[in-house]
């Protein structure tokens, strides 16, 4: 009365009565099923408790924080106003800084030039001007000196003095010195000459490129 799929070995029908056999495997299955079920509940329960505890802790922490923020809000508003006042006032100072932005004072420059010139040299004209380069928003300073020298070596030595001068090369600036001279004035015996100095801010970009 059995079919092929539950084929018995030939000549060997199994006559045991399964229903009344002690279920030795089920004892283990029972344990495993219960163990898994209980573990699942315990794990999920612990997870839930942990979450709820965290919710509780967070709620407490939030109300604490809110209280603290409430308390400090008045102070904070005062601080913010102070801060605003500070920046407004500081702008005045910054404005003054912008106004006096030149790297040197003209009286220092004139004093430096007149004091460093060789004794044999005579200045006939001295001019100082600012020029604004719209591209790059920079300000350069041009110094033009017209002078007379008895000897061209004097002009050279003046030029090298200027090249050494720290005042002409403030930090962040570079100075270009160009001199020229004319034929000797027979009447005075001096060579009319001119020296021009251009003090330019160092181009940050080109500086970087060089590096």
């Amino acid at each position, binding site marked *: 009365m059995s079919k092929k799929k539950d*084929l018995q*070995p030939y000549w*060997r*029908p*199994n006559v045991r009565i399964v229903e009344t*056999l*002690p279920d030795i495997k089920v004892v283990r299955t029972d344990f495993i099923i219960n163990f898994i079920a209980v573990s699942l509940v315990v794990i999920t329960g612990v997870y839930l408790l942990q979450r709820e505890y965290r919710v509780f802790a967070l709620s407490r922490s939030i109300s604490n924080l809110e209280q603290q923020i409430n308390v400090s809000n008045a102070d904070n508003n005062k601080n913010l106003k102070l801060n605003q006042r500070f920046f407004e006032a500081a702008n005045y100072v910054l404005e003054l800084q912008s106004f006096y932005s030149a790297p040197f004072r003209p009286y220092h420059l004139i004093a430096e030039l007149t004091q460093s010139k060789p004794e044999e040299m005579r200045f006939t004209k001295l001019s100082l001007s600012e020029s604004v380069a719209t591209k790059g928003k920079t300000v350069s300073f041009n110094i033009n000196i017209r002078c007379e020298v008895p000897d061209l070596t004097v002009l050279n030595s003046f030029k090298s003095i200027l090249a050494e001068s720290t005042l002409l090369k403030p930090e962040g600036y570079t100075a270009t010195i160009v001199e020229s001279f004319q034929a000797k004035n027979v009447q005075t015996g001096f060579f009319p000459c001119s020296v021009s100095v251009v003090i330019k801010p160092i181009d940050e970009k080109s500086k970087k490129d060089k590096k």
Partner: protein
Amino acid sequence: MFTPKNKGLFVDVSEFSILAARTSSYKLPIVIEEIGELPLAGTSNEEVRQFLEELVDYKGATYFVSRCGVYPENRFVRYFEAESVNKAKDPQYLTNVLESEFEVDPANSFVSILDARDGSDLDFESAVTRKIAFCGGSNEDLQKTQDTLLGYGLYPDRMELGSVSTLGGLCDYTRFNSINSPILFFELTSEAATIFIQSKGQLEVARPIPVGLDSIYPILQRELGLKDESSARKLFFSNTFDFAEMGSKLMRKVIKELQASAGFYEVQTGQTIDRLFISILPKNLSWVAKTISDALGLEIMQPSYEAWLNSLNVKVSEGVELMNLGSRWMGLFSLMGEYHLREEVTSE
């Protein structure tokens, strides 16, 4: 996947003794690692368990999963030849046959219907045989037997009728050894006896005879003038008395039945039975086989197990000696054979 660490335990439990074998596992191929025998005579469950624990490690468990051959009192194996293949496929017809011819109550019994030619389960849809073997036992009896096994600490992974598995073993043995002449297989126990005749691995006769060992004790009592049957029984099983002379007297009824069946078979088929196979009976009753074989003029079969088992993928480890084990061990070893595998091989 898993290599089974659990050993196999095969047990043949008859009323006389317990034969047991520990194997490497249940899944073929297996190796018989140890065998043992415990004669049963008022033996307690604890003693049986002790015997089994010497064979296998229970690892503290209550039961050891085992494969058992059993001989319940009301077991039955009946051969039936239907008039047609179609009738043999009709469950209702077969049920009627069981009830009317073999007095088996299908409602309260476990019944297995086998193809008598090879022992396979009868498939009602595709069966093409008229030769059928009914086997089984009453539910009550099987339950009692199963409870006995559990009492020994044996958890039956399989519980098989020893009579049928022995028959199967014998049939397969016959095929393996190409024995072409029919064999008379006689199973004798206290309350029942069955005559089987198998030829070339096919069952051709299975018939109960209304005698058992119990019916011999009154004769013995009378012959020897003993005061009661129980002392006759004691004497019968003791090793002290030589029954060789008295054997034919004691077994007269049995021999008559056997002669009748064998004669009928031989006349019907024209084949001559020349071998006798007797299962179960313990060593001290070896005179029974001798008496019958002398009376019927048959040769007693002494199976040589090792080669046969080898062919069934059952190896025998070195320390185990099967050489001198008699035919009563067939019941145990036949529990290990998967004969359908051999069928497939030979049919290809």
